[in-house]
């Protein structure tokens, strides 16, 4: 190309560059749509494969050697109990940690260390949490291969998600609100508890639900702890008819969970079991998507209600 362009050269070059632009738009859109389309296709196929198994029986029966009689009762009950433990542990600890980092922590190397840890933990492969739990909860603390171990493991796993979510929510509360409360003589905790936290409830809930939706599908860490794939009994009910009406026996119970059940079924060569896997996977997928939808809805609702 010569240093001085004629007007024709410039025009043709410009036309070429503009065509490249158009080509990229087409390519980009095509790739985006084919990725989303492919995933949609896979999901539809999954639902179709499992369609014959959907029904009340599937939800209320224990796993069985016969594929057509097998159900996911012990799996979804186990998953619910694990999620209960996870939520009860991860929510208070995560929110407290976030409040400390956002409202209390001085800016020094020590806070820096905590922050780096939170960031790094989010990138640790989930199976490593499983190994941690196996060494620590199952053997050192002697919790065994129980609902409690699984719940604690997943709580550690989603802690960074809850911390990050809560911090974002706290950060969104304007400084003026804090200063107004300080001006009236409130202590730091009173400011946080009575003013900052109520405004950030939406964000905190969103973080919790997103964390739980991640935990509900996690398979690797709870396999490592030793979830069983064939469980034909339910843990003791947490609520009992006699005083004191609650019991904690269920925490020590052995368990299975939805993803474990799916993994077990999908690994069998028998096609009837693979249909069970598809049906259970579709249900699990539905649960995750529903949780995410709820989280998005809460975020939207709270955002609309707040007018600073």
């Amino acid at each position, binding site marked *: 190309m010569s240093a001085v362009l004629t007007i024709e050269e410039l025009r043709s070059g410009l036309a070429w560059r503009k065509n490249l632009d158009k080509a990229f738009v087409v390519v*980009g859109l095509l790739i985006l749509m084919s990725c989303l389309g492919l995933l949609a296709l896979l999901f539809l196929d999954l639902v179709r494969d499992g369609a014959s198994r959907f029904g009340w029986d599937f939800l209320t029966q224990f796993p069985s050697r016969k594929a057509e009689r097998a159900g996911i009762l012990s799996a979804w009950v186990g998953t619910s109990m694990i999620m209960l433990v996870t939520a009860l542990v991860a929510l208070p600890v995560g929110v407290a940690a976030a409040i400390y980092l956002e409202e209390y922590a001085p800016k020094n190397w020590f806070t820096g260390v905590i922050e780096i840890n939170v960031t790094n933990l989010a990138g*640790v492969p989930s199976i490593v949490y499983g190994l941690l739990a196996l060494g620590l909860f199952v053997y050192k603390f002697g919790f065994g291969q129980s609902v409690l171990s699984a719940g604690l493991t997943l709580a550690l796993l989603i802690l960074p998600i809850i911390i990050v979510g809560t911090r974002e929510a706290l950060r969104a509360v304007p400084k003026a609100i804090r200063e107004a409360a300080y001006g009236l003589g409130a202590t*730091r*905790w009173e400011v946080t508890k009575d003013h900052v936290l109520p405004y950030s409830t939406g964000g905190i809930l969103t973080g919790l639900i997103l964390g739980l939706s991640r935990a509900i599908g996690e398979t690797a860490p709870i396999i490592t702890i030793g979830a069983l794939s064939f469980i034909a009994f339910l843990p003791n009910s947490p609520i009992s008819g006699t005083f004191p009406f609650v019991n904690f026996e269920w925490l020590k119970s052995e368990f299975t969970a939805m993803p474990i059940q799916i993994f077990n079924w999908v690994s069998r060569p028998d096609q009837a079991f693979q249909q069970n896997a598809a049906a259970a996977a579709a249900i699990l997928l539905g649960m995750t998507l529903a949780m*995410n939808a709820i989280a998005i809805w809460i975020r939207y609702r709270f955002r609309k209600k707040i007018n600073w």
Partner: protein
Amino acid sequence: MSATTTTRSTALGKGAFSSLAYRKYRDRGIELILLACALVAVFTTLAIVVILVVESSYFFEHVTIREFLTDRMWTPLFDDAHYGIMPLVSGTLTVTFVALLVAIPLGTIIAIYLSEFATHRMRETVKPILELLGAVPTVVYGYFALLMVTPFLQKFMPNLPGFNMLSAGLVIGLMIVPYVASVSEDAMRAVPRYMREGSYAMGATKLQTALRVVVPGALSGIAAAYILGISRAIGETMVVAIAAGMQPTLTFNPTEPAATITAYIVQVSLGDLPHDSIGYQSIFAAGLVLMLMTLVFNVIGYFLTRKFREAY
């Protein structure tokens, strides 16, 4: 005047003052509780390191580091036991490579498209979908790999075994596309508007601006997205455990079945191993290698982002 103040303070009694003191003490106590919760993150990291190192140290009492690194077979559960980590590492790297071959180009193109070309409405629709896809349980992707992608590939490659690293890698790639796209798009959106406008003013088209101004400007964020993608691919467990087979084989050929580090840990955990057996200890040694691999990539990523960071 001063008399009234005195009476008032006595009227309020010591209660008012002790209440302030009490509130301050309570604040201090609460701060300590909050700090303790924040320290859980630090303790988790420490516990991970300690557990992995201590449990693997038992393993390395039986197995020399030299054997661990140079033996070409990994069969800790057989009578003829070999303890060479290489087959597991080769499996992990092969699957990760296939996954990145899918995820990096597709993810980057989608990110450029969304950030620079798509309409506002399009972006606002697609971004939540991408984030939603990140929440899909990986066991579901394992189902896709084994029962949908492998049979599909077998139509074109009749010799492809039922378990293979190719379909596992492809599905993991597809799985992390939304992730890479979403994080890179965030980085590109953070490039200031005036840089784009400067480029347009020089007569550059959108594509030129995107490739020569926005992408270099966002390179540190894009590199971070790639590194996160690599970490996820290395640590991905269920897809490979389901679809890639579980025999540790020293091969870099993706059309063969092989085990990854993560798949091996799952395989051992599914059995019932006594606490002090070498099989039990071997999963911690494998886990330690996995942690070191992710650590290496994270450190590389950290330096890459520092090197390529453009200040504006």
